[in-house]
């Protein structure tokens, strides 16, 4: 890719990242939203994270099959337990990486 391609791509990505972050804040810091919308939006973070994570853990990229045997899923179980017990973001990332690395060597 050329310098101009990169510049176009990152300015475009930057705009579509920044606008959803800034517009609601500027608009809503002086207004009130309907309670129903606030309640619905309250389920968006957990729903987005579940939707981002599950296909990585359960879909075999080689043949697009649903499986419970992926290494990503097996490592996710102890990683999830560690996250629940410690509630440490940095610790969970490091433990997940370490387990995935070790599992790749020994399994």
């Amino acid at each position, binding site marked *: 890719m050329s310098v101009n391609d990169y510049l176009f791509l990152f*300015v475009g990505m930057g705009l579509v990242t920044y606008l959803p972050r800034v517009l*609601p804040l*500027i608009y809503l810091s002086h207004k009130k939203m309907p309670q129903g919308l606030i309640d619905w*939006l309250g*389920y968006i973070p957990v*729903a987005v994270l579940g939707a981002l994570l599950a296909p990585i853990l359960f879909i075999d990229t080689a043949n697009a099959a649903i499986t419970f045997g992926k290494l990503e899923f097996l490592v996710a179980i102890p990683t999830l337990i560690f996250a629940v017990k410690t509630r440490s*973001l*940095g610790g*969970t990332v490091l433990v997940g990486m370490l387990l*995935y690395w070790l599992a790749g060597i020994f399994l």
Partner: protein
Amino acid sequence: MTPHYLPSASVKTALYAAWPICLGYFPIGLALGVLAGQSDIPWWAMALMSILVFAGSAQFICVAMIAAGSSLWAIIGTTFIINLRHVLMSSALAVYLHGVRRSFLALFAYGITDESFAINMARFRAGNWTRFQALIVNHLANCVWILATVSGVLVGQFVPTGAFGIDYALIGMFICLLVFQLHNRLHVITAIIAAVVAVLWAKFVPGDSYIVGAAVCAATCGYLFQKKRDKN
């Protein structure tokens, strides 16, 4: 009343609050940089992306899409969809930044990420937290992110593919952030619905539409369950 200057004690509190984010961002940013380096993305492009975009998961997906030869418009469209979730976070933060001047909000909004949002909301809710401390958290996290991603590209050529489990950094972050979001039983149910719908959607529909599709389905289910519960 919000102070117009920052006593060193509150700066220290802000640095202490930002520490877990920085610790979490360093391996993730490093991993992103290494992957970018392996996809022949130069260090200056990584720096430019981290400054202009500053959105971890979108940047990972961007690197994967560049490696797969996707069109620039497809990458920008995917970034938009993935980062639409920040509309919610920005809206929720507005409650604690009521009537604040627009230039401050413009500067603050740049640093709203899943992680800084989670930490700032918890602190705002607990009280004794100023918008200037929140701003420090956002921008300190951004500095660490830029440093980590560029370092990743520079040292990446010495790191073999898949070394030290770096491919798992993003998955580990998602797992922990998901745990942070499980406030009650309805959130757990919503997460399970999102997971099931996303897996089926991803299996049968090509592309990345499953993220927003499954998220909207599951959030609507969670909201309807809440209404039903409140009625009873």
